[in-house]
């Protein structure tokens, strides 16, 4: 269908659209140039709505602003690419010609590599490292000189092509580009990387923008007016934090030491054979040239974290300019860390305090430390090392050094000598944790004028601007309009025996609570058709409660109705379990999947249609509050952003709960029951996303198991009735006519509003004229008040009318 938003013609590839002002708000943001946070119910075609508006915007206005669409997982990226492809096909049909348009997806080398032996490596970082050693600049130089070196054919072939035209126009899904690459013997990864500047739409993972180690190289050429969209962004703060945090263990230090020794050996080797190269590097460093562009090229050797601009202009400090000096410097730093790891007590300290102590014992100053990562990259390049994967741990240490010396605030070092409080054998880990999500994302907000953050579950919305340190133009949560009640959210607070149920620490292991949860599970297993998903707050609790249920015979009861499958921390096992689950749901046996609210399943797996008719959330999924890292973060949030501990914990728990609930509802023809089973949910209801909260009847917020079951029965029966799709028209989806009608209505309302406003104004003028003598209190006051009620739009309109 085709319609206009203001003056912008939008082509939408489906005949029906979900009503709402999502598109309008989005356009407003783009027009105004600013950031926005939008919460839109899951399964309502958020992606296609976004894409069709932005593509229309891009094609219509002369700036042709580029779209950068970030998603979390590879499958989501692929999904978005497929949507984009169908959108472009539709546009071509409607417009009668193919537009000058390129859309590309980018993912890691591991997924895009074609090299016969490299692509078989299991770990992503090994693939990266091996690829780099085949494609690095000096390798090519050597080859040109006629030396025999290994290179990658797929990469070399690219050089023969026109650099801005590596693939034809069109939308390339990951699958598509892999096939194209195989056909034309060109590397899909580098094709995508190099074409990024010439694309209209780029779809890739968060990390390419947020992880400072990658962002610099992958995303530096993107211009300021790009439109950046973070989809499924409810966890974006954690992604930011993870991208800047590192853990250092004794083992990694040991391997880093080995790396230093290798470096040392290489240096002496080179000093004998090819002194000139080292000398060249040294001279460059003296001049402060640092080969900045070289290092930042796409095939740069190692990844450096971003540094503040002023640092980039500085020259490398004199005491690490020489290779051997730098190696000694690294060695001292590593030995120092090793000594620190020997302490058998938990220590938490700030970077300045760490630096002070470091300086006292090793005479290492802050400034050379800041240059550590960059200096290492330069050295590795000079030495022309090819087996970079061996230097990974060393690089981690160097990155840590750079970060700790760069940021005084927002980071904390926590040394934990033992894995748990009861452990006897020490296994020290030095956590260098980032506490401030705003640090990683700041460059994105600084650089791009429009950033859209959107997800199905982002309540409360104001939390995000606060935590990420930005301001919004639009900040909106959209409700869902439904032709019939297609999902039934409930809060169960009591068992059938009226005893309160909760997973709060005090009572979670009481037999009565466990039994009540068990009954809840078996009752719902009995009445739910096909698939059912259950979420627990943690693996630990899941394990203990399952074994207790086993003892109580509850699992046997469930077993009569459903197959029982359990998520484990092991990804392979879990995917096997999921496969079995789907088979069992599809063939009518029915199954129940027991998983964890913060696990893999809760984030990325959809349980649409019969794969999930009931989701049962057992307990409020709070984070493990004894974690020192979490405590530090809570303190930081309170100190810096005035977010109270309990507010954050509860926000975090509820977004995970909402995420779990959203798993079963993946579209408007889908239906499902959502059960929140914990007494404490009752008070947290307001923190659920608007679309869930609105659908929750007041009668459903404080139920006992038996009430919930009978209500669910009724719901399922009503869902069993046939419901022709066209009944949804006009209510939960709109066709062209509805849209037109709505538009008309809006316009009519607008006119009424304007006339009213005008009348008001006139009346006010009269009032003012009359009300000089203080006696006009009542009337005059009223008008003045209503003046405040008018918003700016109206005012602008009013002026326009006056001018006419």
């Amino acid at each position, binding site marked *: 269908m085709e319609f206009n938003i203001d003056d912008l013609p939008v082509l939408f590839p489906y005949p029906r659209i979900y009503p709402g002002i999502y598109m309008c708000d989005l356009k407003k943001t783009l027009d105004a140039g600013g950031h926005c946070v939008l919460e839109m119910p899951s399964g309502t075609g958020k992606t296609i709505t976004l894409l069709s508006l932005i593509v229309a915007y891009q094609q219509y206005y002369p700036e042709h602003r580029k779209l950068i669409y970030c998603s979390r997982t590879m499958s989501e990226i692929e999904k978005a690419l497929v949507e984009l492809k169908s959108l472009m096909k539709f546009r071509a049909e409607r417009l009668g010609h193919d537009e000058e348009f390129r859309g590309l997806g980018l993912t890691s080398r591991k997924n895009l590599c074609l090299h016969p032996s490299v692509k078989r490596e299991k770990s992503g970082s090994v693939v990266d490292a091996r690829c780099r050693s085949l494609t690095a600049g000096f390798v090519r130089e050597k080859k040109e000189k006629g030396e025999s070196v290994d290179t990658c054919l797929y990469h070399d072939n690219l050089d023969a092509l026109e650099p801005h035209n590596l693939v034809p126009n069109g939308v390339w899904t990951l699958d598509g580009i892999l096939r194209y690459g195989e056909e034309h013997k060109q590397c899909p990864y580098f094709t995508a990387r190099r074409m990024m500047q010439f694309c209209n739409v780029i779809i890739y993972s968060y990390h390419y923008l947020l992880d400072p180690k990658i962002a610099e190289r992958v995303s530096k050429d993107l211009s300021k007016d790009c439109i950046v969209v973070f989809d499924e962004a409810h966890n974006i703060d954690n992604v930011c934090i993870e991208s800047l945090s590192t853990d250092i263990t004794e083992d990694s230090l040991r391997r880093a030491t080995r790396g230093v020794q290798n470096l040392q050996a290489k240096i002496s080797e080179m000093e004998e054979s090819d002194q000139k190269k080292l000398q060249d590097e040294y001279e460059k460093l*003296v001049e402060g040239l640092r080969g900045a562009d070289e290092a930042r090229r796409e095939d740069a050797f190692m990844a450096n974290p971003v540094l503040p601009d002023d640092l980039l202009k*500085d*020259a*490398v*400090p*004199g*005491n*690490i*300019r*020489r290779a*051997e*000096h730098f190696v*000694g410097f690294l*060695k*001292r730093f590593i*030995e*120092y860390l*090793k*000594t*620190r790891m*020997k*302490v*058998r*007590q*938990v*220590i*938490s*300290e700030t970077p*300045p*305090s760490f630096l*002070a*102590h470091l300086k*006292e*014992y*090793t*005479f290492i100053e802050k400034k050379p430390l800041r240059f550590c990562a960059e200096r290492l990259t330069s050295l590795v390049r000079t030495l022309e090392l090819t087996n970079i994967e061996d230097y990974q741990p060393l690089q981690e240490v160097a990155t840590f050094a750079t970060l700790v010396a760069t940021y005084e605030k927002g980071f904390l070092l*926590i040394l934990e000598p033992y894995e748990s409080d009861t452990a006897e054998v*020490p296994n020290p880990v030095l956590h260098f944790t980032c506490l401030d999500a705003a640090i990683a994302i700041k460059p994105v907000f600084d650089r791009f004028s429009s950033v859209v953050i959107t997800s199905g579950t982002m309540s409360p919305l104001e939390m995000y601007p606060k935590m990420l340190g930005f301001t919004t133009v639009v900040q909106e949560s959209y409700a869902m309009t439904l032709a019939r009640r297609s999902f039934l959210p409930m809060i169960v607070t009591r068992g059938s025996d009226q005893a309160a149920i909760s997973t*709060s*620490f005090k009572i979670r292991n009481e037999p009565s609570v466990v039994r009540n949860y068990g009954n809840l599970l078996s009752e719902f297993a009995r009445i739910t058709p096909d698939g059912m998903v259950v979420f627990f707050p943690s693996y630990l609790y899941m394990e203990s409660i399952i074994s207790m249920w086993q003892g109580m015979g509850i699992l046997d009861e469930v077993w009569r109705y459903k197959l029982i499958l359990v998520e484990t921390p092991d990804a392979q096992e879990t995917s096997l379990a999921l496969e079995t689950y789907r088979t069992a749901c599809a063939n009518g046996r029915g199954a129940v999947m027991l998983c964890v609210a913060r696990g893999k399943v809760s984030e990325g797996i959809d349980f649409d249609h019969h794969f999930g008719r009931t989701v049962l959330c057992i307990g*409020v999924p*709070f984070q493990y*509050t*004894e974690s*020192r890292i979490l*405590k*530090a973060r*809570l*303190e930081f949030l*309170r*100190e810096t952003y005035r977010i*109270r*501990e*309990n507010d954050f*914990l*509860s926000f975090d*728990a509820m977004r995970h709960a909402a995420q779990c609930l959203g798993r079963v509802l993946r579209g408007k023809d889908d239906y499902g029951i959502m059960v929140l089973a914990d007494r*404490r949910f009752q*008070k947290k209801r307001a923190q659920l996303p608007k679309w869930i909260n609105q659908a929750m009847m007041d009668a459903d917020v404080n139920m006992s198991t038996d009430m919930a079951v009978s209500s669910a029965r009724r719901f399922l029966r009503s869902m069993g009735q046939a419901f022709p799709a066209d009944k949804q028209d006009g209510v939960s989806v709109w066709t062209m006519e509805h849209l037109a009608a709505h538009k008309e209505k809006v316009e009519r309302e607008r006119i009424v509003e304007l006339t009213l406003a005008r009348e008001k104004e006139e009346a006010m003028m009269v009032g003012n004229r009359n009300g000089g003598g203080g006696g006009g209190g009542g009337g005059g006051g009223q008008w003045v008040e209503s003046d405040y009620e008018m918003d700016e739009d109206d005012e602008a309109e009013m002026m326009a009318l006056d001018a006419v």
Partner: protein
Amino acid sequence: MPPKPAAPGAPARNLFHPLPIPPSADDMCPVCKTIRYLNRDMEFLINPECYHTMCLNCVNRLFTDGPNQCPYAGCSRTLRRKGFRSAFFGDLAVEREVDVRRRVAAVFNRVEDDFETARDWDNYLQMVEDLTFDLVHGTGEKRGEAEKVLVRWEGEHKGEIERNRRAGREREEQARRRMGLEKDAARERRVAALREVEEERRERAASKEAELDGIAAAPDGRGGVQLKRRGQVVRAVEAAAAATAEVGRLSIRGLKEKGKPRGAEGPYDPFGGVDFAPSRYRLGEGLAHPQVDKYRFDQGHVTGGYSFEEWTARAMYEAFAGLGVFVEDEKEAGIGLSSREIATIASGIAAVGDKMELD
């Protein structure tokens, strides 16, 4: 109610005492061949003369009676008991390098501000680094030369070195003080936040209480049932009050405040407002205790001009002296002492810490 985050924001323990580092099996003294297994508290020492390791027993055995030769075959150094310390680093080469650096840093102590251009500063840094490198890794000749340079530089720049040293110390002092202040402020904010949460909880409990009062007063039978729950609320309120008291006790800092400045009008006070009346206890009139009484009359104790009351007063004074003085806190902002972390970390790692500071 979310689970109460145990003492929200409480930092991980920062203070600690040196704990013995669990032994690894292959710890063995190269001199007497004792293994850790036989002597769990074995401690290894080195002497910066030659950096040869040996156990504390050996050191005591060999060097208590004055200087002696290093027991290592082929090492002819003469060592003294005083020179031994435990090593900070596991890698003794680094230990030695750092010792050299300490010497060099004491002499070459210019800072960036002393230079006109960044280039000069970097060149200076490299010069120092080259020198250090020669001292650490250089062979005979180079090393000797570097030593000479070091000595010469020291002689030539005496005044400057002294000046820089003082400035450096001042800078450190300032940084330390700033860190201390920041930490204090953070602590205060933490306490305030705690109090706020507590207050809120109390308010909530109070309003619930009021509600219950209303119900209890209701004429029908519901009051009796509801009252049962009441005990819990009261307990909660008590707990809350206790917690607040806890918080109150945390900010004991007020004790350290000096006496209020005198008003300009007051009579002249030679002691500048110091009040000698004991504030923490009161001396009773006649202290009677059989154990003490005997001194009152014992000829051996009673001397001319000596009042027994004086003696009890003094005993009491000594018993209470020092309360309200927080050595840790004073150390933090104190002079010549490292900040708390540094002191504690050092002691945690090994006893070396202190010794190194004295160097």
